[in-house]
């Protein structure tokens, strides 16, 4: 702990001396502050939850103090994981001024979750704003918003979709009957249906890349032929903030692959977290708030 505080101090100094611009300095100072609270929370909470539950987090490499925003968010992620699950609340912040519409997030999400055709968790919509010559394209990446009042959850006839204590809206693939009521009820189109197709349909062979297990929910399910009970075929599917990654101390795929650094992820209950800072700015907007869904994805416009 003393070591960490030392690092923090050093960091501060470094930030002050080398900070060529204000933004750089601010980021470094913030990441240092993040680390400080990380250090102070650690011993207190480690006693609260059994060590074996957080062991995998404690074993993870420490975030680099100078690693920039991604490392800061990773540090905050580690800090959150050391708290009991019901004290975390995962939120995403997307800076639309920084989004360049490259769709790297869409692609990395498909790759990470091994998604079949027709299943997309994070599309990026495009809209033309303004009138020529004052015109621009507006991009809007759309993950699942993991609403606090999710319209998709109460409509499920079999309790297959539910809100986890950490705020993530999850689907139990063994429970889902595939009625698609949740897909219908989502005002954001955040759910899609696994119709059971392969990219290689119509070719002589389904190639091994399509039969790789999907790591979703840490369950490593393989999409086998037919309606195998273990296969996610015939189910509603959705973004789960890369739950399998975050429980292992890694940021969601869309966050780490965002070229413009437009996607932020963290714990809303951590007052020192980057996402909380960003949500405190005056650029924040949520989509279709009038429906009372209380989405946990904030846009900076």
């Amino acid at each position, binding site marked *: 702990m003393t070591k960490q505080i030392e690092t923090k101090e050093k960091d501060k100094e470094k930030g002050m001396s080398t900070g060529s611009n204000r933004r750089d300095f601010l980021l470094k100072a913030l990441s240092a502050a993040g680390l400080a609270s990380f250090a102070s929370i650690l011993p207190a909470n480690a006693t609260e939850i059994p060590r074996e539950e957080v062991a995998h987090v404690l074993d993870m490499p420490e975030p680099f103090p100078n690693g920039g925003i991604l490392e800061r968010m990773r540090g905050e992620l580690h800090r959150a994981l050391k708290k009991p699950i019901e004290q975390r609340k995962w939120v995403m912040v997307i800076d639309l001024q920084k989004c360049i519409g490259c769709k790297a997030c869409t692609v990395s999400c498909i790759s990470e979750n091994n998604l079949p*055709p*027709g299943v*997309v968790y994070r*599309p*990026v*919509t*495009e*809209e033309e704003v303004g009138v020529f010559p004052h015109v621009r394209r507006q991009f*809007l990446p*759309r993950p699942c918003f993991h609403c606090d009042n999710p*319209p998709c959850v*109460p*409509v*499920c*006839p*079999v*309790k*297959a979709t539910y809100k986890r204590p950490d705020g993530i809206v999850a689907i139990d693939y063994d*429970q*889902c*009957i*595939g*009625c*698609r*009521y949740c*897909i*219908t*009820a*989502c*005002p*954001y*189109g955040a759910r*899609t*249906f*696994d*119709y*059971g*197709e392969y990219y290689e349909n119509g070719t002589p062979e389904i190639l091994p890349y399509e039969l790789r297990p999907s790591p979703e929910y840490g369950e490593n399910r393989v999409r086998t032929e*037919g*309606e195998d009970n273990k296969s996610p*075929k*015939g*189910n*509603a599917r959705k973004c789960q903030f890369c739950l399998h990654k975050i429980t292992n101390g890694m940021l969601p795929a869309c966050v780490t692959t965002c070229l413009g650094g437009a996607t932020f992820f963290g714990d809303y209950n951590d007052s020192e977290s980057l996402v909380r800072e960003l949500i405190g700015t005056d650029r924040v907007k949520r*989509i279709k708030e009038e*429906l009372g869904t209380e989405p946990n994805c904030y846009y900076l416009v």
Partner: protein
Amino acid sequence: MKKTGIIILAVFALIGFYTIGLRFSEGLQTTHLNAVFWGEWVAFYIYCIGLSAGSFLMSTLIYVFGMHQFEKMGRLALLSAFVALLSGLTFVWIDLGHPWRFYKMFTHWNHTSVLAWESMFYIFYTFIILAELYMLMRHDLATLRENSIGRKKSIYKFFSLGWRIPSTEEGQAQAKKDSMKWVKILGVIGLPVAIGVHGGTGALFAVVAAKPYWFSGLFPIIFLVSALVSGCGLMLLLYSMLGDKDEDYIPMLKGIRGFLVLFIGIDILLFISDMLVGSYGAIPEHTAIWHRIMFGNYWYVFWIGQIFMAWLLPMLICSLRSIKDKANWMALAGLFTVIGIVNVRFNLVIPAYTEPQLPGLDIAFSGHPRLSYDYFPNFVEWFSSFGIFAFMILVFLALWTLLPVNESISRGMEKSSLAH
């Protein structure tokens, strides 16, 4: 003629079984469903549930409201309510992504889901229809059992649940009285249940705040009224074809026709109210859908199917003095209504999905047809639907010939017992 009809139905049923087999072996990828997640099968599901609820409510006219002039169609209405319910449940069952997990509706019942409530309603409703039919036919079934031999005897023994006609006259009279008492009780319970069954099916859609086209308190009522329209149409059609051509025949059809006209009138009224209010507010997701229904690619479903076939044509037939009292024309009015309401059901379900939830979402995922917002059913969906209908018509005809649904003797019995 009769034989050819049955062969055609059987052929359609067989093709239907084949396509349903395809659906079960390959999953829902055999359909054309895409970002329109509820398609033809769901439309036919609500159509059949509507037919069922409509027929059942027609039977309550007799057994609950005491309109005994309709007595002769009572059993027919209940039988068609049962077969239509079976068809509807088949449609929604094959539409599930995991049909074999349907039992979870009961083992993991979620009280906040309208769909879960509906599954309970369907079970309860099936029980009421069957119990009511049994009570109405118990005496006849027992008679048939005694008068037949061999396999038929055991069939009737099964259907009569082993019940035997009491030996004494008083016992018989008492049994008939009990039957009719039970029919009345079941009908009284069945009335709110049938309203729940179809109003609830409407509520399934109406509670979805994400779809302004559905999100209206009027929606479940429109479901219910159009169910009554289709129920009257079905009764008009069935009774004109199957009913005994006796002195009650034409007055009976006229009576049903009166209800048909009444319900079509209410249906049009509710529809116009919903449409005008909905399109007056300039909410894009709402007005765009109305615009697409009327002037989109499938405009004919609305103008020809819904407006002309389901409403105007039956109304016209039922009001032209030269033809309105002819049985064949009334049958035709019933037929047009029954087919026309299919279009109403399609337009209730599918257009709601055609508008992207967020601007640009329809073109955000470039390319894959499964993410398209334009839907038209493919051959698997069409032929499985035709197959289910053909098979269910055969089931209906089999039950019609096997069971004392239209036995003249039974009618004599009911009349005497209801006359008290």
